[in-house]
């Protein structure tokens, strides 16, 4: 049975809610009373439940199976976190309640901040950013503000080629120009090239570490020293912080700012595209520029600073979103951190790295490893092993779907040809990694045997087969419209 759009299922006069009859009060809407239909369909509650149940059945999630999407860190999302986030004393707080009525909430934010500070070794954190990308914005704006405060007009930001697309986009949004740094043969920043690009117009570097090739930047301290010597700041993209939590403190590497994706690192659910949360830790140098609002201890209680000029020594660069950050995500992340504890978090990052290296070891003879050595939390391959098979990275990934797995990340990072980036995460069993590796290896054997046609048409068993993305983009249909008679 195909599932129609709600707009195709509704009937006028049907509804999924029972609301009291209005009394007919004379309206005070300034004469702007709505005088036409909105155009929404009417469905009963059972229809709505069935519709969204059926839609959900067309989705694949971590709960359904192995989801080794590299750089996305699709780890287990505990239900405890969901339960706690729905406690009425937490979910049902209005952001503008008087401070005296939300002391528990402020304490929770402070506790969450404390865990982040201890885990990173950094002195300050802004809890405000709505997601990782806004965290980057937060960090780069703080750098811009610090430069402005120094009266320096540095505008060039160095970004490795392998960076997430958000990095250059963020730098541009802060008025910086982006200068690419090439990678070495072994997938790290080319130190010489980097050093050559330094200069007094350099605002700083945006470096992902562990990087998007799944490798630890060996020279990270040297990079930090060099950029500092050159008068710039070191922004670290913390997207891969999950590989080193509890084992390496970013503060010990010399960074000035780093965002933390709570969903990747502390398992707030990705939810098919958010909500995220991207707190940013700061060095002493950048701490004063952190945006409003922020929580401070005050006497026995907690206080929320909502104005720029309230605290001595603080020079906030502004405000990043309405209200005080993604509270619902702080609750989940704190629940996750407390559940793991210092020992469990350390174990989690170690297991993540162990799982990735195990997968690498099992596949390295058949697939082409992009860079030598151990990886961190994800293993990167290029499409060399598919050469002459007529099968592309994409084809292989689509064939994996039919085996009951979510594909790995494809064609990212861009520094590798036809990249396959595989991140098992720590919550997978050895058995499921073995199953996945067995499936990959048999598909590779199949590809080598010359059955390219099979791959070109995969997947076969999904609710939809390959979709025509070109047609979608050429003449975009972005909404339902009633058929005109």
């Amino acid at each position: 049975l195909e599932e129609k759009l709600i707009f195709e299922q509704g009937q006028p006069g049907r509804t999924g809610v029972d609301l009291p009859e209005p009394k007919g009060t004379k309206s005070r809407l300034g004469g702007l009373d709505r005088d036409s239909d909105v155009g929404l369909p009417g469905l009963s509650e059972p229809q709505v439940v069935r519709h969204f149940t059926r839609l959900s059945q067309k989705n694949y999630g971590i709960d359904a199976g192995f989801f080794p999407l590299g750089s996305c860190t699709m780890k287990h999302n505990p239900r405890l976190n969901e339960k706690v986030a729905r406690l009425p004393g937490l979910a049902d707080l209005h952001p503008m309640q008087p401070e005296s009525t939300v002391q528990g909430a402020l304490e929770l934010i402070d506790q969450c901040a404390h865990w982040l500070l201890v885990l990173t070794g950094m002195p300050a954190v802004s809890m405000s950013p709505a997601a990782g990308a806004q965290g980057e914005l937060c960090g780069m704006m703080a750098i811009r503000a610090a430069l402005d405060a120094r009266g320096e007009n540095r505008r060039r930001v160095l970004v490795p080629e392998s960076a997430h697309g958000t990095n250059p986009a963020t730098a541009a949004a802060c008025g910086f120009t982006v200068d690419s740094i090439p990678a070495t043969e072994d997938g790290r920043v080319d130190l010489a090239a980097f050093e050559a690009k330094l200069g007094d117009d350099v605002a700083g570097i945006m470096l992902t570490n562990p990087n998007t090739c799944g490798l630890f930047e060996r020279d990270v301290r040297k990079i930090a020293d060099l950029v500092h010597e050159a008068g710039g700041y070191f922004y670290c993209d913390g997207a891969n912080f999950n590989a080193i939590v509890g084992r390496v403190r970013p503060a010990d590497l010399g960074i000035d700012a780093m965002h933390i994706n709570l969903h990747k690192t502390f398992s707030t659910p990705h939810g098919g595209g958010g909500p995220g949360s991207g707190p940013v830790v700061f060095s002493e140098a950048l701490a004063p520029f952190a945006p409003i609002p922020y929580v401070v201890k005050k006497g026995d209680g907690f206080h929320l600073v909502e104005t720029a000029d309230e605290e001595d020594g603080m020079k906030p660069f502004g405000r990043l979103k309405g209200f005080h950050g993604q509270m619902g995500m702080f609750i989940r992340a704190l629940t996750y951190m407390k559940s793991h504890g210092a020992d469990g978090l350390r174990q989690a990052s170690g297991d993540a790295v162990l799982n990735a290296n195990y997968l690498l070891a099992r596949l390295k003879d058949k697939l082409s490893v992009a860079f030598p050595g151990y990886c961190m939390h994800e293993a990167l391959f290029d499409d060399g092993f598919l050469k002459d098979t007529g099968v592309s990275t994409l084809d292989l990934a689509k064939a994996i779907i039919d085996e009951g797995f979510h594909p790995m990340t494809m064609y990212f990072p861009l520094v590798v040809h036809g990249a396959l980036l595989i991140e098992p995460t720590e919550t997978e069993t050895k058995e499921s990694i073995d199953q996945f590796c067995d499936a990959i290896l048999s598909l590779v054997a199949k590809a080598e045997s010359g059955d390219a046609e099979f791959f070109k048409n995969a997947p076969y068993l999904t609710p939809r087969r390959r979709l025509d993305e070109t047609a979608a983009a050429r003449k975009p249909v972005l909404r339902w419209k009633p058929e005109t008679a």
Partner: protein
Amino acid sequence: MRYLPLTRADRAAMLDTIGASSVDELYCDVPDGALLDAPVDLPSHLGEMQVERDMMALAAKNMGASSVPSFLGAGAYRHHVPATVDYVIQRGEFLTAYTPYQPEIAQGTLQYLFEFQTQVASITGMDVANASMWDGATSCAEAVLMACRATRRKKAVLSGGLHPHYREVTETYCQYSDTEVAGRDGHPEHQATAEELNDLIDDQTACVVVQYPDVFGRIQDHTQLADLCHAKGALLVVVFTEAVAFGAVKSPGSFGADIVCGEGQSIGNALNYGGPYVGLFATTQKLVRQMPGRLCGETVDQDGKRGFVLTLSTREQHIRREKATSNICTNSGLCSLAFTVHMSLLGEDGYRRLATLNHENACKAADAIDTVGGASVVNDSFFNEFTVKLSKPAAEVVEALVAKDVLGGVPLSRLYPNRSDLDNYLLVAVTETNTDEDIAALASALKEALA
């Protein structure tokens, strides 16, 4: 640890396959001295029951907005969320999915995004909407940046009726991109006319931003302003904080708005002490390729069946990098699902009735407050929120109400800390969740506090 499945035996076998002697060896690229050899100074792992107790203890230190009569608005509104909504968003197939980059196994997410976009476009009266932003305030900032891109101009005029957070976020986003932000201070007893705003529009003005209903609760017709903007080549951006309002008032699209954006929390989402919320963003067909954020579009699959995909991603950062329309990546997926489910339950009749009930309750509360000595409603028009002038500083009154277990409203001093002329004004929001008893409790508590 309950989430970590590897056993001691697993670890040994895996290290053996890898050919490493220990997990630490895998971290060999970490610089000397930076690899910790023991857990950091934080508590050890805890069982589910212990963690739950910890968190419940924190929750118990708050006064839940549903546990007392509550009249807080100013950009976030308490509405009843049907149980179905929460059930649907907790289904693992939605909760634990990723951004739908593999459309063959993400039609569930993609189809609801298509439905979401249609719903948002419908209530705002616009042609198209995107698949969500972070919240109303960031939507507003993105709208200004989009207007600058579309007009190739570098100035935005913000009306005084715009929520101060939205203004601050917009200023923050604009400050490093050479975009000038102009506008005038708002006041609950003076509403800027189209002509007054028109005076601020020059040939570098990309857009004028108004809020509808505005932050003080007032409802104004912006048809004339749209015409004035368009005459000068500027766009009209209409911002909203209460998505329920469009069930009762004319849509911004009907004014000729070019971009309509705002907060979608009211539909399907809990208050959550301020987040996560869901930014709504709609525009005209003409401007669609300037939009920030994700878009879901209809197409067909290999077998010719209708299906949905993310589309126009050449606008986005992962393709276009520093030339992207925005750096937004993860948006508010699950919050937009909650919106879609709730809106589906409401339907045409429910949505409009919900709006009517909100307005009727607000009228009732306004009348009750007007009978209190030392308090008077200043609005001529409002939807479910209005401003009250008090005989005392509103912040003090609010604290006095807390002592009587009433969350009485948001003092304007909280939103405008540097505007002492607004100290005596209180913003009061009333929704379908407020009972007659709630309203009576507010009036009586106000009476005592102002006596």
